[in-house]
């Protein structure tokens, strides 16, 4: 075990953990907006896959990663819009429509992949940018301040989201719509409009989450490459008690433990590999049970708004 807690290992965990956390942050921060407005979007995984595919395909065919990123954001927005139509206008059962959206996105991304690319190809993604001064800090500089753009933006998103949710009128409207849509409605807030906006924000960020994998971190597209990340992202919103800061803590715990378990295996510590892979899941549950302060979920979460009811 002593072998495990050496400086290179700790730095390695920090570096891999930051990279692993990036897609979770985009997706989970987006879902935080969605759920704070009272909508439960379980289809994040499907949106991520579409974002990953479109980001990669556009990036590869146009040669511009920026266009790829834009494409991923747009397709995420469209998928979000679809979810909003189904869950806000048609007031559909949200858990199940999320599963529908997931199947749709997963299937469509694979279908398009097969028909347009036909096989796995790689791309040269967003390159690491070393931040001046900070990047020169011994040891930590390389680990913390030498990442690609999408990694930095993911972490910047946390304070921005917190600011928007807690310090702006828009954020206030979002939270009031999620807590008590009837009261918000009587105050003249357009419940449907707010919910459309948040679900579209969530979709856009989920699309970017997918692109962060396909054109910034792993730089290729393969069918079903998110492998359940979208569902973990939804779980992280619950872990974070619907606050961006809490989501960050959750995403980091999950990712650091995931990086740690890989090091445990690489260092040849005598633990069956399957049990090592289990660790982040077990610890996330335990952390929530014992360490994290609990908060009440948005009162109207996953309840469609019917004017004049109650």
């Amino acid at each position, binding site marked *: 075990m002593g072998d495990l807690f050496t400086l290179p290992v700790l730095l390695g965990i920090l570096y891999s953990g930051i990279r692993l956390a990036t897609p979770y942050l985009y997706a989970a921060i987006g879902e935080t907006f969605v759920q704070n407005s009272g909508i439960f979007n379980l289809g994040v995984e499907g949106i991520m896959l579409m974002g990953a595919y479109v980001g990669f395909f556009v990036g590869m065919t146009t040669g511009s990663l920026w266009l790829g990123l834009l494409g991923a954001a747009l397709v995420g927005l469209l998928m979000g819009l679809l979810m909003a139509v189904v869950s806000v206008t048609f007031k559909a*059962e949200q*858990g199940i429509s999320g599963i529908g959206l997931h*199947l*749709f996105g997963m299937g469509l991304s694979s279908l398009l992949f097969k028909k347009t690319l036909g096989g796995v190809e790689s791309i040269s993604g967003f390159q690491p940018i070393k931040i001046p001064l900070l990047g020169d800090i011994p040891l930590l500089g390389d680990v913390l301040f030498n990442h690609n753009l999408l990694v930095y933006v993911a972490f910047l998103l946390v304070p921005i989201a917190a600011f928007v949710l807690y310090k702006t009128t828009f954020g206030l409207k979002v939270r009031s719509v999620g807590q008590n849509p009837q009261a918000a409605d009587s105050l003249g807030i357009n419940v449907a409009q707010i919910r459309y906006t948040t679900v579209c924000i969530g979709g856009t960020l989920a699309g970017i989450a997918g692109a962060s994998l396909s054109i910034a971190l792993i730089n290729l597209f393969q069918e079903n490459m998110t492998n359940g990340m979208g569902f973990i992202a939804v779980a992280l919103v619950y872990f974070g008690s619907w606050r961006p800061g809490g989501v960050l803590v959750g995403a980091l715990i999950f990712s650091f433990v995931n990086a740690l378990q890989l090091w445990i295996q690489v260092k040849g510590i005598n633990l069956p590999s*399957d049990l090592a892979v289990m660790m982040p*899941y077990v610890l996330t*549950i335990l952390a*929530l049970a014992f360490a994290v302060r609990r908060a009440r979920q948005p009162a109207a979460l996953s309840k469609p708004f019917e004017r004049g009811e109650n």
Partner: protein
Amino acid sequence: MPEKPGIKKFLNQLFEALLPLGSVFLALLVGALILLALKVNPLVAYSSMLRGAFGDMTGITQTLVKATPLLLVGLGVCIAFRGGVINIGGEGQLLVGALAATALAVGFQTAPGWILLPSCLIVGALAGAAWGGVPGFLKARMGVNEILSTIMMNAIALQLSNFLLRGPMIDPAEIEAGTRIAQSALLPRSVWLVRLVPKTLLHGGAILALIMAVVVFIFLWRTTIGYRIRAVGLNPDAARYAGIRVPFYQALSLILGGAFAGLAGAVEVMGVQHRMMEGLSGGYGFSGIVAALFGKLHPLGAIPASILFGGLLEGANKMQRTVQVPSALIDVMLGLVVLFVVSADLLARSRARRRKING
């Protein structure tokens, strides 16, 4: 005129029955456009889909084989959702149920079938209940949200299954042959569920599932515990004022939900595969949720819903083989079906509301 309300009621019922079918039709219409884009004749594709699901003996039995775990998982989902908890952990509960039933059957090969077979079913259900009980306990005692914990428990169950199947529970023949494929030994024949139709996979588990649907219906609507679970789900605050221990009944509904998913796992091992292996759960833990919601979270409604959904899954596979389109198209169409069906619900609900208002 006395007949008129009767006719009206009948027409209303007919409309509501046709609504999901209509939205399935609409989804197929969108699917047809995609098929045309793939240069496939949609009529050929869809007729093969229908034949695949209900067209011949193989299709019908395969549909029912699929419907069986869907129904069992769906029944658990009914109980959990009626109790106001969202159980996404069917996948993991199904796996541990299958693992437990396998371990018992393989461990006590020589025990007489009349005692071993029911024990395996019960142990499978108990293991699933335990797996659902962890999120139940965490919710009741620590306030841990069950969506988070059931998603995590799915991942844990998958790794547990990997671990057991490549280590303690691996088929000794696999070690001997040096192939080391992660699967358990074959279950003793005494626990194989009876084949209802020879040369097909349809097994006695289908009948068990039908019986269980009735049992769950009676449980939820004719017993005190069932009444309390539903009361907690409908309005936890009111239930609390009425003196019902809300956390206890929430945990109980997660445990019972897990038990049915675990039973589905045991049935799948004993009825279809006859051994535990990777890929056994086959996504039934998720599709079961969809089936239950198609059935309006009613145990009896889940019966036709799971048959319909099972037929859809089976027919889609047949279509994929017949016209050789990528299997991903099936997911696209299933996704659309789900989205359209839940969206169409609005029409049914608004009609119901109008009826209520009009008296």
